[in-house]
């Protein structure tokens, strides 16, 4: 590749990443320092950044095709560090990155445009678009990261924005509770990703993908790791991917995530956030190739999630929950494909599923009306699809039905798992309070009431 073409492609990749980040920074600073801007201004800014990112991605894909470039690295120098340790701002653009970037920018642009009308006169209009732009920056960084550490930065931004959009409606406790459940799953899986990075530092002396996967293409493996290290790192990556993609046993957060506004549910849990785990496994596919046990575990995990999702989804009474479990089912199948060593099929499945599910979720609020319209056209209610549970032997059906209604008893199992930890925390706190008794409440004091007068409007 010539130097000019390389610079051109690097500039396009950077533009796709920087535009939403700059939009989020401008809007975030505005919201911190001043009253929220007008809807027109917010919409214009978001539209400009998201459509600009989409245009840059399209040009990047075209440019790579025209120049015959399959993979290139954009090195922006060190972000922070000293001596041999630190994180470099290094992007990797290859055959996996570009389709995911294209999918992300296309869906973000579409959902951004949809949301301008959908959230018209909503009190948190500007906050929604700030979070959407920050999410866009996070997901594009996740897609283009050149090292596991930089990928973690994007992963965290996606997680934080996910939680804040689930809890978007501040007036009710339900969304906040849903956000906390999702956060608990995210933080648990973050530990896996961080520990994987630590292990790679320890055992491979690098977390850069070009060092770990020296093959010419993104599907060419196996990784340059020993079998023991590949097993440990692969296991941790599979663990973190399972949490992010709502796989068994973490799947109970996904329906709760539907508390957020419909456009964010569509883009996060139908399209991009829920596929972040699958993307991580695709990016680190050569590690799975070097660790067949982990690949087998991913197949089992995906299969179990697909079965769980399809049964539980059938007994849901609201459209968004049913779609959430349908998403989990399809992502489970994508996991199976990844585990079986079919990365190109998994990528195609991921793109197709994200597009379809986004459409379904965006149409979910009008599902009842559409159902009535279809019934009116047909002159009868549409016949339900044949039920998979009819394939089960009759004695098992009641048991499976109960299992589906209870969502696989995941919540109960997790509560049992967490209860001893919380019990220990409470016992330690009681001991702590005995050693150092807390002071009496400050609210009744003269000093406090005087101070309260000083700040009353």
């Amino acid at each position, binding site marked *: 590749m010539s130097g000019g073409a390389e610079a051109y492609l690097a500039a396009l990749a950077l533009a796709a990443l920087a535009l939403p980040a700059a939009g989020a920074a401008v809007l975030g600073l505005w*919201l*911190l*320092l001043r009253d929220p801007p007008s809807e027109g201004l917010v919409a214009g800014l978001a539209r400009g950044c998201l459509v600009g990112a989409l245009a840059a991605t399209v040009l990047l894909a075209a440019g790579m095709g025209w120049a015959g470039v399959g993979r290139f690295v954009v090195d922006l*120098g*060190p*972000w*922070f*560090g*000293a*001596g*041999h*340790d*630190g*994180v*470099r701002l290094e992007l990797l653009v290859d055959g996996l990155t570009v389709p995911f970037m294209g999918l992300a920018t296309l869906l973000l642009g579409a959902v951004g445009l949809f949301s301008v009308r959908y959230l018209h006169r909503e009190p948190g209009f500007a906050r929604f678009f700030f979070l959407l732009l920050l999410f866009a920056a996070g997901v594009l960084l996740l897609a283009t990261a050149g*090292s596991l*550490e930089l990928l973690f930065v994007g992963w*965290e931004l996606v997680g934080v924005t996910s*939680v804040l959009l689930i*809890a978007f409606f*501040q*007036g009710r*406790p339900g*969304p*906040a509770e849903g*956000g906390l459940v999702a*956060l*608990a799953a995210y*933080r648990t899986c973050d*530990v896996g990703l*961080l*520990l994987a990075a*630590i292990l790679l*530092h*320890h055992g491979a*002396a690098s*977390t*850069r993908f070009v060092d770990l996967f020296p093959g010419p293409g993104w599907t060419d493996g196996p990784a340059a790791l020993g079998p023991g290290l590949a097993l440990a790192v692969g296991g941790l990556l599979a663990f973190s991917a399972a949490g992010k993609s709502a796989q068994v046993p973490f799947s109970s957060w996904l329906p709760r995530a539907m508390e957020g506004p419909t456009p964010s549910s569509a883009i996060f849990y139908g399209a991009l956030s829920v596929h972040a785990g699958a993307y991580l496994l695709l990016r680190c596919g050569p590690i799975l190739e070097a660790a067949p046990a982990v690949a087998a575990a991913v197949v089992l995990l995906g299969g179990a999630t697909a079965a769980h999702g399809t049964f539980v989804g059938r007994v849901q009474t609201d459209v968004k929950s049913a779609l959430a479990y349908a998403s989990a089912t399809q992502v489970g199948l994508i996991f199976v494909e990844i585990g079986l060593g079919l990365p190109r099929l998994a990528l195609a499945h991921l793109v197709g599923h994200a597009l379809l599910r986004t459409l379904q979720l965006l149409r979910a609020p009008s599902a009842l009306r559409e159902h009535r319209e279809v019934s009116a056209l047909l002159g009868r209610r549409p016949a339900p699809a044949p039920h998979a549970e009819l394939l089960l032997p009759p004695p098992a059906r009641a048991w499976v039905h109960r299992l589906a209604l209870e969502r696989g008893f995941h919540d109960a199992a997790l509560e049992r798992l967490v209860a001893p*930890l919380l019990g220990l*925390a409470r016992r*330690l*706190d009681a001991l*702590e309070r005995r050693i*150092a*008794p*807390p*002071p009496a*409440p*400050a*609210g*009744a*004091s003269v*000093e*406090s009431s005087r*101070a*309260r007068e*000083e*700040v*009353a*409007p």
Partner: protein
Amino acid sequence: MSTTLLLPWLAALVAGPALGATIARRCTSGRRARAAGLAVAGPCLLVAALLLAAGGAGVVTDPWGWPTEAGARPLLGLDPLGRAGAVVVAAVACAAVAAAPPRAAVIARLLWLEAGGLLALAGLHPTLVVGGWALTLGVAAREAAAAPGGRPGARVVLAYQGAALAALAVHLAAAHLRGASGAPPGPLELGALVVAVAGRQALAPLHSWALALVEGGPGAAATFLGAQLGTAALLRAIDADGPGLAPALAALGALSVATALLGALLGLAQRSPRRALGCLLLSQGALIPAGVTLAHGPAAHAGVVLAWLGHGLAGAGLLLGLDAIERRLGPLDLARYAGLSARMPRLGALFLVLGLALVALPGSAAFCGEDLLIGGMIEAHPFASAALVVAAATNGYTVLRLALRLFWGPDRALPPVGDLLGLERAALTGLVVAALAAGLLAQPLVRAAGVDAAPASTRPPEGAPRPHGSGP
């Protein structure tokens, strides 16, 4: 910058807040006291930032000193890490003076705390270091006692920090007596160092005073928890007797990791926002001494600077935000959603960002610092690194739970209160911007501070494996 030119700056940095405190205490009006406090704290922050940015590597000291048998010993000086600490103390003081209720006594206490913290950081003579610790202890105990029902808390603060102060005096005296004989530190000196650092840094089992101090608020003293005076004393000791301190460093490393886990666990069980925040500060703060004692390589020093800045600035901002809420509404209970976002949307946003910056939101100074610290200890202590990762992940949950429970939920029938006032808003916004800017511009900051070279105190011990990194 020559040492002769630095003397007035260092002297002003230490003496300025003390003078300001005296003036503020004599002011008849609270607003005048605050103006006087800001007139002192603002320039102090500027001087500390200039020293950090322009100091480069090495220690800046005054040219004159305390006469000893071995010649003149410098009185004041700041190494690169001390300069980072000075910035934290000065920034916290400036923000706290701006956001605190305008009362002369409160402003004066804040400035005394700043003076004590800066004296302990910049003092090179043992008497000055002990004096700085004693000053901060006295003000913190006074602060705790002033809180309603705070006498038991004040007793806890006095007992724990008093023990730490006594242990520091013993350690410094033992080191002075040992002098330049070249003998390794004895068990008494090592034990005293462990007690001093653990007591001052609120490391388990000497951590209860920090929870008492935070819970006793609204107050000024708790905002200075991020000053990390114990870590500063430890770094001084490492520079003097690096290899001889191995047993003490191992003990402090273990205590730091235990504190990080304990704080994270305790945070999950809290119903009081102040106590939950205290647990968070305890747990996140323990990462810094853990890095100092367990991490090796140049990354460790850079990590300490960044983590110190991140923890100090974000932690102080959270405490000031919580103070602002409690001054308006009294204590709240995390068992219920308080629904404050309707009344205080700007405070809600700032509180959330500060909370995420405390628990290492990517892009914040704490993120860069923790990454470097954990990266520096992976080789020698993989299990400790893993434990710290678990603690940090748990703290992330606690901080978001705290923010959501305070600001989300239905708008309850609370007294009519407004959002942040002008100076409160400026103080918290300044802390947010500083915590994020220090992370986004981490590399220039580390280079300017002169901590990207490997100092003796962070070199790996003989036979230890060379640290690896992701960078080339």
